[in-house]
């Protein structure tokens, strides 16, 4: 069972457009130069999904979105703690300095949630446009947990009959500093009405 090459190429194009769009919006949002350093898309075995964001036991801050519409699935954006700190520092340096230490994690979740909203909606919009389909996301939730546990759980919900999935990675630079995050796009294979994401 494999995914059609055409579907993969369209996904790749849509992901790149979506990530570039996200970069532009984030740059405007932060008022700081933000460059897209690397974009990569891939098609991986489901068994490899828990390892997509590096060591599976490493705690990451994840934005988790499910979507319905013409295709069902999930979008995860995983930020390593150091990248989350850098992004949050850029987004709200004065606020982070003025709040008590115990309030920083909640504030960071909120700030990174905003970044994830921008990135997630940009990618989903471009994928929807690229395939001329309707994608209806529900509001994201933020989860701070082992990367492998989050990805493995999401994979379980992706469907019992799928054996591989699409992923996109994005690395950005903020001024001189690097911040990276991983985007995992998990369509429920075969969930589309018109054959999109179906396997052959």
């Amino acid at each position: 069972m494999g995914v059609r090459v055409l579907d993969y190429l369209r996904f790749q194009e849509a992901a790149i457009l979506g990530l570039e769009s996200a970069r532009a919006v984030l740059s405007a949002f932060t008022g700081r130069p933000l460059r897209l350093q690397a974009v990569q898309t891939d098609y991986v075995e489901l068994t490899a999904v828990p390892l997509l964001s590096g060591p599976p036991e490493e705690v990451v801050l994840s934005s988790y979105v499910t979507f319905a519409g013409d295709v069902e699935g999930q979008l995860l954006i995983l930020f390593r703690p150091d990248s989350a700190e850098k992004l949050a520092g850029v987004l709200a340096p004065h606020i982070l300095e003025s709040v008590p230490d115990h309030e920083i994690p909640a504030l960071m979740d909120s700030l990174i949630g905003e970044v994830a909203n921008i990135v997630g909606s940009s990618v989903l919009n471009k994928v929807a446009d690229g395939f001329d389909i309707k994608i209806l996301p529900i509001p994201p939730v933020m989860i701070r947990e082992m990367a492998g546990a989050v990805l493995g759980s999401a994979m379980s919900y992706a469907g019992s009959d799928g054996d591989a999935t699409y992923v996109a990675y994005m690395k950005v630079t903020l001024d001189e500093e690097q911040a990276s995050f991983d985007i995992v796009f998990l369509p429920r294979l075969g969930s589309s009405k018109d054959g999109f994401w179906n396997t052959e």
Partner: protein
Amino acid sequence: MPNQLVVGLAEVKWSVVQEDVLVAFSLGSCVGVALWDPVLRAGALAHVVLPSAKGRPWQDGPGPSREPPRPEKPGKYAATAVSYAARCLTLIGGDPARMRVWVAGGAHVLRGVTLPGGDIGAANVRAVKEALKREGFPPPREDVGEDYGRTMKLYVGEGKVTVYSVSRGEREI
């Protein structure tokens, strides 16, 4: 020096090497099932992903039923994982009735999210326990549920299992 063997998603591994440690990293809704025979001093560890191959039986009410489109890894589903792990040990003389059994994982780490498929973690735990009972195993020791990820290790030489989580550290179950 322990020799760590990683049991990936949907995999089952077994060992009679006393220095081996079988590890299932970062179980979320997945369930780790460890079997250990005290006479053989041999163990097996399965990394279960889903409760069943047919449709989505963890949902309430009737639903679609279909077989997987091709042969799957034995550890993917609860029943096949337990059966395969048991067979690995019984083929070399193991006896389910005397084995020690541990179950870990089955959490709901996607906190705050209600999915159409329901709580797969809880369904995985139920399916694994049913499969263990069917195969004639004693009741398992367990560390399941809640909302956090776990790493499960089976120490083949000692017949002990530890579970690690970020909030609770590592402990023997």
